[in-house]
């Protein structure tokens, strides 16, 4: 694709940086949807973004916002606002942890699909998020919310030997996945230290190209004992395991042709995600042909 001509992709919002990653008066180059961007932070803290077009001209981006500690942009005409995450404003004493940004040579959609995949825990995250002897995936439900703009997998549960940095003994963990847009997913996980409350872990994936992306991530969790470093190390260990899988997946774009799949019941969320992406008309990062 020479110039991104995918209106569905262009009109969406994407995170391109965490606010504190860019010092006052500094700028950095990045890519979004195969396009070259220059992100600048003014001395007064405001962000600006230049879109460097292929004809040598540069155009300032109209749609640029700060929300949840991240910088968001849209290259097109956004048809809706940046997603609402109520748990950022509900007054609960959750900690916010910026979990950094990690490059992955894969489509953003591959990263999202792996994020909400349940049945890999026992084999990829053995000893933390799953174990060989408890690999069964109990049934869960798939729901469409916000007039079909969001996809949820609810009532998920899994036995996890060490579900988080704060976890002590192995436990059955309950959670919901929210896929708020093709490149954004949030897990709402039962807090192990505050019964009845949810911990949040979110991925804002920046589709740099069709086959490479940057994963921006945050956690908003009840944890009064572990240091930021400890929580980050736990996350990095988990993500490094996922990354090993992601770098080997072919094609790098996510296949959405129905005949490409041989799903099991535990893959209901993956199947729903692929059908949902297919119906959305999105092209970028998807493999629509049977390969």
């Amino acid at each position: 694709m020479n110039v991104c001509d995918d209106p569905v992709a262009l009109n969406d919002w994407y995170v391109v940086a965490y606010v504190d990653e860019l010092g006052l008066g500094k700028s950095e180059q990045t890519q979004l949807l195969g396009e070259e961007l220059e992100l600048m932070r003014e001395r007064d803290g405001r962000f600006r973004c230049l879109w460097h077009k292929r004809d040598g001209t540069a155009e300032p981006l109209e749609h640029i916002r700060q929300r949840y500690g991240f910088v968001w942009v849209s290259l097109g005409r956004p048809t809706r606002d940046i997603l609402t995450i109520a748990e950022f404003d509900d007054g609960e004493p959750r900690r916010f942890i910026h979990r950094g940004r990690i490059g992955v040579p894969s489509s953003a959609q591959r990263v999202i699909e792996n994020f909400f995949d349940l049945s890999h825990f026992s084999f990829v995250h053995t000893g933390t998020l799953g174990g060989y002897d408890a690999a069964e995936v109990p049934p869960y439900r798939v729901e469409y919310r916000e007039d079909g703009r969001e996809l949820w997998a609810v009532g998920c549960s899994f036995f996890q030997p060490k579900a988080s940095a704060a976890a002590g003994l192995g436990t059955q963990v309950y959670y919901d996945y929210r896929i708020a847009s093709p490149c954004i997913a949030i897990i709402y996980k039962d807090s192990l230290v505050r019964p009845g409350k949810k911990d949040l872990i979110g991925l804002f994936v920046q589709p740099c190209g069709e086959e490479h992306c940057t994963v921006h991530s945050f956690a908003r969790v009840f944890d009064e004992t572990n240091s930021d470093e400890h929580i980050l190390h736990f996350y990095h260990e988990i993500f490094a395991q996922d990354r090993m899988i992601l770098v080997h997946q072919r094609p790098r774009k996510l296949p959405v042709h129905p005949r490409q799949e041989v799903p099991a019941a535990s893959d209901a969320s993956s199947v729903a995600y692929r059908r949902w992406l297919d119906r959305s008309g999105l092209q970028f990062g998807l493999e629509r042909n049977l390969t």
Partner: protein
Amino acid sequence: MGDVAEKGLVCPYHGWRFGGDAQCNFIPAHPGGTPPAAARVRPYPAVERNGYIWVARQDTSVEPPSLPAGVTPVRSMHMPVSGERLAGFWTRACLHATGRFSRVESSCPETALFQSYVEGSGSILHGKWQSAGLGVDYVGIVQPTHGGTCMLHLAAQEPLSAEARLGLNRALVALRHEISRSTACEPKWGMNHECV
């Protein structure tokens, strides 16, 4: 990629287990269920020879290439170039000045794999590795993988001293570095963010 269990080959992603008939016979996410008939991978004929497993993608009547007797595997390493380009690197590195079958001098002992006599081309490369009084005949087997990359399987003539084995390993790493340096201008997937 996967590990061999009692009843088949286990995929490292979701633990699906495939029997010798290529049919999935166990899905750990549903231990009580029967895997769908469509959960079947494509089988390829395979034979074991010289310590390697050889696979034919289509023509099953073709025998694996014959290697010299007494050759033993040393190390396999992924190379970020196609098999054709690897052969080019190899021969260029070995023959850059004096032509075919010539000794190539290198001031860096780490690139000792290049200080070798090379003949052949294509998927099997033969050569003699020489360093510090040691001389070892070796074979490089090129396995085309995907996306313009390949796996290089290095095997050498027995008896192989620990010193020679270590030297060959270092030489292989040096070759890999040499190739990585030469292809450095090609896309690398790092952070995708470049500070200016």
